[in-house]
């Protein structure tokens, strides 16, 4: 098993290189000239050309990409045009906030979405089932940022319970200011988790082993959790893993709505001020995060389903 994890980690390297290549390539299309930005409006053509030479901006693409990679490995993402400080530091300052927001979003999706899906499946065609599935349909169709706006209208302006923006001080303050953004970002995740859990449960509910479990006198609660849900979990994990990508993208929107000091808000700020190294750094960071989450999801399968674990073991052995 650990051999497989190692193998997957090694395989992660080309994917990350590819990801960074794609992102770097896209950002390289930008017509913003770093030299011009750095020297300001008043700079002469000669001084700009000089700086370009110095920064190696006229080198071939491959060379520049190689240099970016080399610096990246050393924790150097270049310098922000706006802040005149290393992009890496800016990102590290904000990364925990984005983690907090995205993490609570996933947690809420799991804690609310899965129970809704389980109950809806066990009570198929009941009122609860209908109501929760209608909620899920709306949840999957509503734009996250708009959900945020509505939450602010209701819970900050009409009934001032939670702050409309920013991040509070101290644990209590942070939690209080986290409520609305976390609800916003998890809205579609809850819907997705509930829908997937329900349909996966409905498949499992009819399985013979469920009746076998009942036939040996297992209580219905235990049958539901131990025999149905555990078998229904794989598609749910897949869906939540994919949702994490949506969530990272959504963090850009949610952080903008709530002025949450995370990477998402930073990237938008940087786009507006044409701060290319910062944008690149944020996009690279978010992509690397998602790649790692994808790997974790794949490994999580092994803990849920012994058949997949056996496959992983075999895969680890063959390519020793």
């Amino acid at each position, binding site marked *: 098993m650990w051999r497989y994890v190692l193998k997957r980690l090694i395989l992660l390297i080309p994917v990350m290189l590819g990801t960074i290549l794609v992102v770097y390539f896209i950002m390289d299309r930008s017509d913003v000239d770093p030299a011009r930005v750095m020297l300001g409006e008043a700079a002469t053509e000669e001084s700009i050309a000089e700086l370009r030479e110095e920064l190696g901006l006229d080198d071939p693409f491959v060379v520049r990409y190689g240099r970016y990679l080399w610096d990246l490995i050393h924790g150097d993402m270049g310098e922000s045009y706006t802040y005149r400080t290393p992009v890496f530091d800016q990102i590290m300052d904000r990364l925990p906030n984005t983690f907090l927001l995205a993490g609570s979003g996933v947690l809420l999706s799991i804690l609310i979405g899965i129970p809704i899906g389980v109950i809806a499946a066990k009570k198929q*065609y009941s009122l609860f089932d209908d109501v929760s599935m209608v909620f899920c349909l709306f949840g999957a169709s509503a734009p996250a940022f708009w959900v945020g706006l509505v939450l602010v209208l209701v819970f900050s302006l009409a009934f001032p319970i939670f702050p409309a923006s920013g991040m509070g001080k101290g644990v209590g303050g942070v939690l209080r200011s986290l409520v609305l953004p976390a609800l916003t970002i998890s809205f579609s995740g809850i819907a997705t988790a509930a829908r997937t859990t329900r349909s996966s449960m409905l498949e499992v509910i009819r399985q013979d082993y469920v009746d076998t479990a009942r036939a*040996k006198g*297992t209580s219905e609660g235990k049958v539901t959790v131990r025999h149905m849900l555990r078998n229904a979990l794989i598609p749910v994990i897949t869906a939540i893993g994919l949702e994490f990508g949506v969530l990272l993208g959504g963090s850009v929107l949610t952080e903008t709505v709530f002025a949450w000091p995370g990477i998402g808000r930073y990237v938008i700020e940087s786009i507006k001020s044409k701060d290319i190294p910062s944008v690149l750094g944020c996009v690279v960071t978010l992509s690397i995060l998602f790649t790692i989450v994808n790997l974790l999801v794949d490994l999580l399968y092994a803990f849920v389903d012994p058949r997949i674990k056996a496959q992983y073991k075999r895969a680890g052995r063959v390519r020793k």
Partner: protein
Amino acid sequence: MAFLEIKNLKAEYVTDEGVVHALNQVDLELVQGETLGLVGETGAGKTTLAKCIMGLLPQKTGKIRSGEIYYDGEDLLKKNPKEMQKIRGAHIAMIFQDPMTSLNPVLTVGEQIAEAVENHERCSKMKAMERAQEMLELVGIPAARSGEYPHQFSGGMKQRVVIAMALACNPRLLIADEPTTALDVTIQAQVLEMMRELKSKFQTSLLLITHDLGVVAQNCDRVAVIYAGEIVESGTVMDVFKRMQHPYTQGLFSSIPKIHEEVKRLVPIPGLMPDPTSLPEGCKFCTRCPHADGRCRTEEPLLYEISPGHQVRCFRCGKGRCEA
């Protein structure tokens, strides 16, 4: 004395396509320690009957219309879900048809057997696992394999696990629903042999559901033949195999090859079993019966006792019967 007695049981499934009359008139008795074979075609209602006894009819669609199921003098149909849960596994256990699908793929076989023990006995997880390992040894699987998952076992081995699980709490009645149908012929014999041994060891009564008459002849004391949700004939193996009276039973026997007799051609029963959503009036077998007359098409025959313990649902065996 019969410790399982089913009286006048009627059950149906309510589906979008209509009401499926799965059980129409089932009367059965099972004496302690005995093996009763329940024989019938696919769709005759065998599995439904087993699920009725276990209280495992699908909640949404399955409905018991009337009848009683007495277990030790108490009507199981009057018990609440909690009480039934205590009976399942501890008093009455069941083996399902397909061993490939009746084990939970994400739990080890040891955990699954131990769960049965934990459900009914106050004991630690350790003790339950020890008991599970003993049960595995008993069905011929090394205790060391208790930590393996179902996908690591073959079909026959899985059925052994299922049997170990069913017998883990020493139930008084074991319902085996086609326990060997999904297995290879050689494995079938092994599994049946093992079931026979364990049954006499634990003194369990057995309700053996099958469509294989050979299995019945080898294993059962008594036989009941079920057709379209009705018991049409029941009696000792001798009664039913040698002195069968119901035309369906007769048809059943003439449609299987006999090794000792030279028969030129097998005689199949003409036609198909009636659609359970729209059963014929009168005798359910009248559409396929070579002896059916006007009365058979309008009036339902009762179970007539033609000799002690040998009952037949056919007018020809009732009062003023005509000889076949």
